[in-house]
């Protein structure tokens, strides 16, 4: 994979990021992220699965152009998930409801790692089926 900057890659990252940010916001609205903190949790957990799956599944087993990989992975899923809101949600809620805020934060970290591992495992399983 080349490491040189290409305009098409940058454009794909921008468009992916544009859409990923909007979908994150919409899910946040739907799940009342402002109070429940569950919107950010949902996108982070789902996104961790998808990124691992795409990085190890799509890239390895399918012949996909680089702009599509960076557009989907770095752009869409990268912007779909968020670290800054996760940290802000913790800080803004830790005084009023410390137990809930800390549990949600740790839940993100634990489930995120678990789903990233699952995404990787799913990609491996898919690859084995394709080879068989």
């Amino acid at each position, binding site marked *: 994979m080349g*490491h040189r*900057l290409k305009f098409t*890659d*940058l454009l794909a*990252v*921008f*468009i*992916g*990021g*544009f*859409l*990923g*940010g*909007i979908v*994150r*916001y919409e899910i946040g609205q739907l799940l009342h992220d402002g109070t429940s903190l569950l919107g950010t949790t949902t*996108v*982070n957990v789902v*996104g*961790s699965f*998808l*990124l*691992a799956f795409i*990085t190890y599944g799509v890239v390895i087993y399918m012949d996909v152009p680089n702009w599509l990989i*960076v557009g989907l992975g*770095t*752009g869409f*899923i*990268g*912007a*779909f*998930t*968020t*670290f*800054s*809101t*996760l*940290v*802000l949600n*913790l*800080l*803004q809620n830790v005084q009023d409801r410390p137990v809930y805020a800390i549990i949600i*934060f740790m839940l*993100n*970290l634990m489930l*995120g*790692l678990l*789903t*990233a*591992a699952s*995404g*990787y495992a799913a990609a491996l399983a898919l690859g084995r089926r394709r080879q068989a």
Partner: protein
Amino acid sequence: MMLIGLGAGCGAVLRYLITMAGKQWGQVFPLATLVINATGAFIAGVLAALVLPQAWSLLLLTGFCGGYTTFSTYMTDTFVLLRDRHWARGLLYYLGTAVLGILAAVAGALVGHMI
């Protein structure tokens, strides 16, 4: 909604550029993503403390900071470190990003309150 998309798109492009530059810093540790998430948390802390008008908050906080920082790469990189049995490095990255992110956001909030 366009504001969020615009902010998130610009954030993602900046993250991509820093990650590309970071490939020259060596592959031992996903340093670029750590730097991105820590600086993003700092900026988010500043912006949150400033209590911006809603449109600016959507553009800069939800959009830019949300799109610039990333959770999925943080998790995937942690998983890869652990998968490759770099236990200490993986754990350091996993917990280090979380702790640095919190400290950066607190520092950002302090700066924001001073402005």
